[in-house]
């Protein structure tokens, strides 16, 4: 545990040393803080005032107002909650299903591997967005349905990475050693293999977070995401698109926040991949066996 924490701090320090990832982390921290403490800010995402509808950005309403006179900035801040909660929940679902699937498939490599991977292939055959929409058609439109749909779409990513990593590790000496000491399959998978494949899985979680936010927004944009009046960035773009002539900033500003959030997750994910790749290259040549 202590080792993992030290590795995490060192990783964070290396991320902050570079400009792009540091800026991305700062932006995400701002969005997360705003989402968590939204209740403490003088913002009301639901207060309507028809007289003040579709106002351009001003000193009172920095992002302007929407068609019901609601403050767009307030709705963007509360929309961050919707986005981040969906992303977090979806990553959790995808990891809790995908990682065990990948562990079992990669560890045994027999009929269990073929069976599980064919199921994953079926998930991959339909575009994410269609799969999510079909699922929402069955479950009905709600925040929970959006979260589950986005989560299931993320399962293949985790499963494939866990499987590939386990397949590379399972024949190595330290795994063989645990096996010869009498470690059972469950023990080897959870206590020996899992700790050694955590880094790529963490990267995958971050990559998936950006995909999840995009997918949630896309579903809301299509009108099948989190139902109104709950603020959601995608839903704001959907409505804002109807007022492009009257209030061009309505769709532009929430979209900008959405885009910056996605780009930030993506930048951090790629920076982490680059850092891990470099470690991998440095480590190869030396023994790869021991715990890192």
């Amino acid at each position, binding site marked *: 545990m202590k080792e993992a924490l030290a590795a995490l701090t060192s990783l964070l320090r290396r991320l902050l040393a570079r400009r792009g990832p540091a800026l991305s982390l700062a932006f995400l921290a701002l969005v997360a803080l705003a989402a968590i403490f939204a209740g403490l800010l003088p913002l009301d995402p639901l207060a309507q005032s028809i007289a003040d509808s579709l106002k351009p950005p001003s000193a009172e309403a920095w992002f302007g107002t929407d068609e019901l006179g609601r403050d767009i900035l307030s709705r963007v801040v509360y929309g961050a909650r919707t986005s981040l909660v969906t992303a977090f929940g979806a990553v959790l679902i995808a990891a809790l299903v995908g990682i065990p699937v990948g562990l079992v498939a990669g560890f045994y490599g027999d009929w269990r591997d073929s069976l599980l991977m064919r199921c994953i292939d079926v998930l991959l*055959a339909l575009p994410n967005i269609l799969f999510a*929409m079909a699922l929402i058609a069955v479950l009905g439109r709600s925040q929970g349905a959006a979260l589950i749909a986005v989560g299931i779409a993320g399962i293949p990513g985790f499963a494939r990475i866990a499987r590939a990593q386990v397949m590379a590790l399972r024949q190595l000496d330290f795994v063989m050693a645990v096996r010869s000491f009498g470690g059972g399959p469950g023990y080897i998978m959870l206590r020996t293999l899992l700790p050694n494949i955590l880094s790529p899985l963490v990267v995958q979680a971050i990559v998936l977070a*950006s995909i999840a936010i995009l997918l949630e927004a896309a579903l809301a944009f299509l009108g099948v995401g989190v139902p109104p009046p709950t603020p959601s960035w995608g839903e704001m773009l959907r409505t804002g698109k109807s007022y492009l002539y009257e209030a061009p900033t309505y769709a532009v500003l929430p979209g900008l926040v959405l885009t910056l959030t*996605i780009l930030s997750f993506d930048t951090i994910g790629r920076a982490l991949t680059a850092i891990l790749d470099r470690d991998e290259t440095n480590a190869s040549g030396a023994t790869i066996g021991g715990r890192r």
Partner: protein
Amino acid sequence: MTAYVLRRLAQMLPVLLIASFAIFAMIHAVPGGPVAVIAGENATAEEIAEVTRRFGFDRPMLVQYADWLGRALTGDFGLSLHSRQSVLQLIGERLPATLQLALAAILVALVIGIPVAVASAVRPNSWLDRLLSGWSALALGVPTFWLGILLILLFAVELRWLPSASRYVPLWQSPLEALRSLALPALTLGVYVSGVLGRFLRASLISEARADYVRTARAKGVPEQRVVGLHIMRNALLPFVTIVGLMMAHFIGGAVVTEAVFTYPGLGRLLIQAITTRDYPLIQGCILVILIAYMLINLAVDMLYAWIDPRIEYR
């Protein structure tokens, strides 16, 4: 080769069978299901019973599925619950629109993506490479529906050059009108794909450039342009074809968001309409057609492989 294609086509059948059954089962798992849609919201218990009996929903699900499958095999996917038109006819109207948009988007992506990838792969880690890699990241990260809105704001609202809503005009009927309608959606999708292509082609160009045969070619005194254009390009093309094929397959149903931005009458939007109005026969038909198209394009990609790389042989 013929035997291989036939075997691949035969392998598609069980997948389609399982997928169609899964969709069928999912639809029938919905509370109320198709009965609720046909009978209407305020239906009395008698009306519901009448609909259930008349449409055969009281039979076991397997029997209903076998019935549907039997008719689907003869090309009869049933009628849309709302428009009462044939499902196959509705899909047939949308498929050419989707294909035209997908092809146009791939074309835009190739025109942007290939030069970007080659320029950055020639000098990896130069300022140009970093700039162009930044472009790829941006192209991938910007949601297509936001980019679409920005393009509409610029080209339709501000400049008034192009329409904000796109119609489907067949290219061979009125090329100019078709291009005007296609320009914005194709650009929106194409920019995204150019990011994918840029990233993948750059990576495979760089890894091919380190190969022995490249060093040999240079040692023989082959001009640099020929080394890059003929030797490296040809070998880097293999993974590239996969990506283009996958994108193409993805667009058959996955361009739904872009289609929604520009109210373009593609297959994806037909499916959204079907889902929001719970038009079950239409949902089922759309998803099956999308799956079939996906698998056929994948097969075409594999066959292209053999053509590009003679070392690959299918038996």
